[in-house]
């Protein structure tokens, strides 16, 4: 059983009773919060820095290039650009913390409102994507490891490497051409067919949930119909990564002595794999799944562009093309913060769930 595994783990160290376990936990929690805070400040520093290196003079953008020097100077002061960089950074952090991301030129609305509107669409697609990735990727990885070196293993390995080699936008395009245009198995771009657009009142912003709340099953079906292809394209990348990592974790376990012992005892191979070898890898897999979920947010930029999916990725690309820096930096901040957040949560989960890391 999994207990056999703990024999290889180092014995828990107690520092001669000077620190109680509770106190140590408090310190590690504090240390964790400090690194989290530093990482977020780092993210803010990077977006601040990017905002400064934009070759467009923000003052000229407001006053126009014919403005007299006095007006220019006054606007510059009003915008706070005459203050030292450190002071500007502090007020930037203050703005971000209070949710003031500036106004998006392309929509004319505050960036934070835009982001709150588009984020659920991305969340919906990424969540279905990671579900597909886990449900298919984990079994594939286990099968590959249990038949190491077979053709099946080689095939799964190539699928895993394809996840690193196929451009997401190309996969989306080919998917649309084949499954939507040719085979007509799935819905086309957008979240629902155009005549269903705006029928359901947004409550959560997740159209699958909203249509259930409204009791409109026709729209629910239509939304699933539209969601399935972009989510599968996105899910492919997490599938490839998860299968690859599962395979490698499983190979580690299958070479351990306790597996041999179980086999010698006559435990059926299926149980050896799923009950003995698979159990200890569940915890590291959680970290992998977390990383992969965060990675899907990034992948969604390309997939959303292809599928005209009104999520944060699409919002970001539109902003990029219009050089709408407030919207670009706002999206970067939100995606970055969620990315960091998910990574850190899976880190914490690992520590909580793995008795050796406690």
């Amino acid at each position: 059983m999994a207990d056999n595994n703990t024999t290889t783990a180092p014995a828990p160290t107690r520092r001669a009773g000077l620190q109680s376990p509770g106190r140590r936990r408090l310190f590690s929690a504090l240390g964790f919060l400090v690194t989290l805070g530093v990482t977020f400040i780092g993210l803010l520093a990077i977006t601040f820095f990017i905002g400064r290196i934009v070759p467009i003079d923000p003052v000229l953008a407001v006053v126009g290039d014919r403005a007299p020097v006095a007006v220019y100077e006054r606007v510059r002061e009003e915008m706070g650009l005459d203050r030292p960089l450190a002071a500007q950074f502090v007020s930037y952090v203050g703005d971000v913390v209070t949710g003031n991301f500036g106004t998006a030129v392309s929509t004319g609305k505050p960036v934070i409102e835009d982001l709150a509107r588009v984020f659920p669409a991305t969340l919906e697609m990424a969540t279905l994507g990671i579900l597909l990735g886990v449900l298919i990727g984990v079994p594939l990885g286990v099968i590959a490891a249990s038949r190491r070196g077979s053709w099946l293993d080689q095939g799964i390995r190539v699928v895993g490497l394809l996840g690193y080699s196929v451009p997401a936008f190309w996969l989306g395009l080919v998917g649309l051409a084949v499954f939507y245009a040719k085979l007509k198995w799935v819905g086309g771009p957008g979240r629902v067919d155009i005549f269903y657009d705006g029928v359901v009142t947004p409550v959560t912003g997740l159209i699958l949930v909203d249509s259930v709340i409204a009791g409109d099953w026709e729209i629910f079906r239509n939304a699933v119909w539209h969601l399935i292809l972009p989510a599968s394209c996105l899910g492919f990348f997490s599938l490839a990564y998860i299968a690859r990592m599962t395979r490698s974790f499983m190979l580690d376990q299958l070479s351990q002595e306790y597996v041999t012992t179980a086999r010698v005892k006559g435990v059926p191979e299926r149980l050896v794999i799923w009950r003995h070898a698979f159990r200890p890898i569940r915890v590291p897999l959680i970290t992998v799944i977390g990383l992969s979920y965060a990675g899907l947010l990034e992948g969604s930029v390309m997939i959303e562009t292809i599928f005209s999916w009104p999520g944060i990725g699409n919002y970001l690309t539109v902003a990029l093309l219009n050089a709408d820096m407030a919207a670009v930096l706002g999206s970067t901040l939100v995606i970055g913060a969620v990315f960091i957040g998910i990574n850190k949560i899976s880190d914490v989960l690992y520590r909580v769930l793995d008795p050796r890391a406690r």
Partner: protein
Amino acid sequence: MTTLRDWLIDDSPASPMQARLGRFYRIFGALMHNPLAVVGAIIILVLVLTALFAPWIATHDPLRQALGERLLPPSAAHWMGTDELGRDIWSRVVYGARITLAIVTLVAVLAAPAGLVIGVAAGYFGGWVDRILMGITDIFLSLPKLILALAFVAALGPGIENAIIAIAITSWPGYARVARAETMTFKNSEFISAVRLLGASSLRVNLGHVLPLCTSSMIVRVTLDMAGIILTAAGLGFIGLGAQPPLPEWGAMISRGRSFILDQWWVATMPGFAIILVSLGFCFLGDGLRDVLDPKSGEQR
């Protein structure tokens, strides 16, 4: 031939040169036993040759427009068909190899040494230097690469040079981590102490003795990263922030073919196959190199 081979695998080489060549020979031999690595090496060799001899391999001028031959399907005259301006896609894909090769080379040349220097400095000096350098590295590592590259290109302005700079800015932290880990393992070994006792400055110790030891794991890491760099560059090109028209960059070509995907599928799909093939090549070779040069690290990356 046998004498050359004996000289190469000699267990007591007479000169550093012989030892080095012998090492290359052994790595090469080990790689040749890994079929996927051989396939990867061949793909990359083909990429380099295609880039070098593009004018001879291409059948048409990649920029010449022939409006009478718009959107022709693949045929004997146009192996991959033509695009919306009547340009031959095969020739554009061939010339695109030059752009892809230039991008990956420049990113590697910019990012790998930067990461190497930062990582070695952090690992060798330790203490505050380490904490500050690795703090910055970790912040960059914890951010999504593509998003960061997009934001940098948005600020710097579209164009292939800025795309390369942006990708390099997002790639160095991984190398810094690897170099630091390697340096930490060598730092306290006896031969480094011996060099230091001989009076070598820390610059000399690092440049002459620590840096060369990091190269093999760096090569593995850079090769494995190449696919990601190619995909990011193609993604930037696809969005319209990377290589600008009329450059035959593969990502930008896919983007132009997007409007024709339903009827003239070849315009968008052909450059995609080129991207997949080259990225797979780097993955295969990187996997093989890692098994040979850095077997400890396993599959976890």
